[in-house]
């Protein structure tokens, strides 16, 4: 059959690579012959050939002696794919169409193997092929494809570089663990691959960030979907450990990625993952020196860094959201009707299942609350450069009263969501950390709450404690605020009724 003929041709290619070096002229002659003799002359033959080659490679992986070279055929395919990416004239199909076709064949052969083989499916050959493609491309693209002698091709490849990663990320997104659980561990290894993750973090103009966010959110969604409150399967907890380690690596190498995208991460993080939350929110800009947060005469007011605006990768309340106008109008002129509109917009018509600590359902749109709170922070930051300190750090300012009223008028779950999102803004020294710690400190002892005061105090302390009783790291802003509260003469935590009634909390607070 034609398929068997393709098997033979591919086997010849594999044997050739075992006898000559990969840049040997005979490899080019071989490829030219494949084109001239109809093996790789059009999309159809391309699809059929690669389908045959892939099936043969996956099969030979299974058949080969595990202690020997199990990837010989897979490595040969990766080399052929990248050579064709460079060598073809791409007159009848474009480079990206070619790459899409090849990745589509890989995806379909993979999906069939995954679905048919069920538990005997082995992810390793499929992983190896995608890992090789990343490696081969990284070798090619060094110093802007300087290895490519032909200038025209070199220019085309340089333009294609961004597309390579876009297309590759799209397929990785489709291979995510929720869709292909049998590929989960290979998938986590691919998105953190040394020839993928650092490149996506550092593509010019942050052009890799959007795709990378998509993939990391796929990972968080998988964890969120399959972390149930009382039990987490062993496999899921291993995935979690891998995710934690990847985030630690990102926080070490490129903290700005976590800093500027913290909103998106918080929107998708499972609510009970406090340590991972802290890793993300504890990231600090590379050049920054962190003053000791427990220093008793530390005051944010005196820190120049606390006047700086933190970078945010996108505006949280995009113009599409219905609440941007009412919120902006309220910040200009606070009115009750606007408040009603905003409150109404926050409540959902149906419940969300949430594995929260102390709650299972959510009747409010927590992402919208997060967007509103961060939007207020951004507006304050911008105003701070024009208005005097007293105008913004003022319980009469519209910024403060909007947050106050959302809490005052809101159900207990809205109170908690608003407060814990404000606590999320307490990160490294910047104007958001500074202003929200002012707001929380003021709210903690404000008489305007009336009989709600104790409830609000309990929610504020809970929102801080839940971030501090977990293992390090702890966000700098949280540590500063908490140590200031401990020393604050206007409030004695041990006297608060909800502390007196809870010995385990009292035992935490008393020594402090």
């Amino acid at each position, binding site marked *: 059959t034609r398929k068997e003929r393709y098997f033979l041709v591919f086997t010849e290619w594999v044997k050739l690579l075992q006898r000559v070096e990969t840049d040997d002229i005979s490899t080019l002659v071989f490829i030219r012959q494949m084109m001239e003799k109809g093996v790789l002359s059009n999309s159809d033959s391309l699809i059929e050939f690669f389908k045959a080659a892939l099936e043969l490679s996956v099969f030979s992986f299974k058949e080969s002696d595990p202690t020997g070279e199990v990837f010989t055929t897979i490595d040969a395919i990766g080399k052929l794919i990248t050579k064709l990416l460079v060598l073809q004239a791409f007159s009848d199909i474009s480079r990206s169409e070619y790459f899409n076709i090849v990745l589509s064949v890989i995806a379909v052969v993979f999906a069939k193997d995954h679905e048919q083989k069920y538990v005997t499916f082995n992810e390793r050959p499929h992983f190896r092929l995608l890992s090789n493609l990343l490696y081969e491309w*990284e*070798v090619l693209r*060094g*110093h802007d494809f*300087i*290895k490519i002698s032909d200038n025209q091709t070199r220019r085309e490849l340089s333009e294609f570089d961004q597309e390579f990663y876009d297309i590759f990320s799209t397929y990785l997104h489709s291979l995510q663990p929720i869709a292909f659980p049998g590929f989960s561990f290979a998938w*986590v*290894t691919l998105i*953190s*691959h*040394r*020839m993928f*993750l*650092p490149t996506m*973090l550092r593509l010019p103009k942050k052009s890799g960030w959007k795709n990378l966010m998509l993939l990391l959110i796929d990972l968080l969604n998988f964890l969120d979907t399959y972390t149930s409150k009382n039990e987490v399967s062993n496999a899921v907890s*291993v995935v979690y*450990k*891998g*995710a*934690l*380690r*990847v985030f*630690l*690596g*990102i926080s*070490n*190498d*490129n903290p700005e990625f976590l800093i500027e995208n913290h909103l998106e991460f918080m929107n998708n993080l499972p609510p009970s993952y*406090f*340590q*991972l939350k*802290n890793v993300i929110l504890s990231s600090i800009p*590379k050049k920054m020196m962190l003053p000791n947060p427990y220093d008793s005469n530390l005051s944010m007011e005196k820190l120049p860094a606390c006047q700086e605006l933190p970078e945010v990768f996108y505006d949280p309340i995009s113009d599409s959201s219905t609440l941007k106008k009412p919120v902006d109008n309220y910040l200009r002129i606070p009115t009750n009707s606007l408040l009603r509109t905003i409150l109404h917009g926050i409540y959902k018509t149906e419940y969300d299942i949430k594995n929260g600590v102390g709650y299972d359902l959510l009747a409010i749109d927590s992402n919208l609350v997060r967007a509103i709170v961060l939007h207020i922070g951004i507006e304050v930051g911008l105003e701070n450069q024009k208005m005097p300190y007293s105008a913004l750090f003022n319980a009469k300012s519209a910024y403060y009263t909007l947050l106050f009223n959302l809490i005052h008028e809101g159900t207990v779950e809205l109170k908690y969501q608003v407060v814990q999102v404000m606590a999320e803004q307490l990160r490294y020294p910047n104007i958001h950390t500074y202003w929200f710690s002012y707001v929380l400190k003021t709210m903690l002892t404000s008489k305007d709450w009336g009989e709600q005061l104790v409830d609000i105090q309990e929610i504020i302390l809970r929102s801080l404690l839940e971030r501090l*009783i*977990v*293992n*390090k*790291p702890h966000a700098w802003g949280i540590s500063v605020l908490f140590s200031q509260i401990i020393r604050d003469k206007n409030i004695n935590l041990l006297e608060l009724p909800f502390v007196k009634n809870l010995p385990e909390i009292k035992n935490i607070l008393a020594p402090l």
Partner: protein
Amino acid sequence: LGADLSSMLHSLGIPRDSKRHKVLYTFQSPWAETSRSEVEPRFFIPE
């Protein structure tokens, strides 16, 4: 409550001193247990 991350940081090669080294370019695997060997990082040889 999470875990003490110091051994995880150690396995990542994030040094205890504050000097930062990039770790993702030589990242072997998401798990310490499967980082059995070092991996060839990207490198460049001028023409």
